[in-house]
């Protein structure tokens, strides 16, 4: 069964550094998403992406965040200047209609 794959599985970075989280969505899917789960809290929607542009974003997705589909297969989330509170599990998801298919996540630790 096709899967959404995310790399790396765990990333440690220092506060103020830029990080890029990478995702390979399922190949025939057209909608892409990023979600975040701070330890012990619920999964929160960050952004959705369709037709090479952001279709919806949450209040969390401020100017330090950006998404890109640099080629036909990858979907990336960039955090420009990481803060301690950005430490979380970041999930990528993709869909053609519904439901969403999630990757296993990238655990980001900001020190």
């Amino acid at each position, binding site marked *: 069964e096709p899967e959404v794959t995310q790399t790396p599985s765990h990333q440690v970075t220092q506060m103020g550094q830029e990080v890029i989280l990478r995702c390979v969505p399922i190949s025939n899917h057209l909608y892409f998403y990023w979600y975040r789960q701070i330890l012990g809290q619920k*999964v929160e929607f960050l952004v959705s992406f369709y037709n090479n542009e952001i279709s919806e974003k949450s209040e969390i997705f401020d100017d330090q965040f950006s998404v890109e589909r640099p080629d036909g297969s990858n979907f990336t989330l960039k955090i420009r200047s990481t803060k301690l509170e950005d430490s979380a599990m970041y999930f990528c998801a993709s869909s053609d209609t519904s*439901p*969403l*298919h999630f990757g296993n996540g990238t655990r980001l630790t900001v020190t």
Partner: protein
Amino acid sequence: AQSVTQPDIHITVSEGASLELRCNYSYGATPYLFWYVQSPGQGLQLLLKYFSGDTLVQGIKGFEAEFKRSQSSFNLRKPSVHWSDAAEYFCAVAPTGANNLFFGTGTRLTVIP
């Protein structure tokens, strides 16, 4: 305000016992409804979904859920729990016409021998 509520933070059941995890939502119209499971260190796996039609839906791993419009609920059930069912369970809704999901806070299930 729109919301998804899972009132039970943590549930412990004995292996072989029945299980019901509660989920209530507050949205203007009937949204699409989902249950996902997350094993430790893993991603979110879809258990089942409800879009329309029969209000009792069957999912993977022997789970089922019942949509009750009058109660705005979508509770997850399993008649006999296995030790491997220990995980975090998330109810999620997609407002009709929207592509993104909104999750509840999750219920952690512990299974004791």
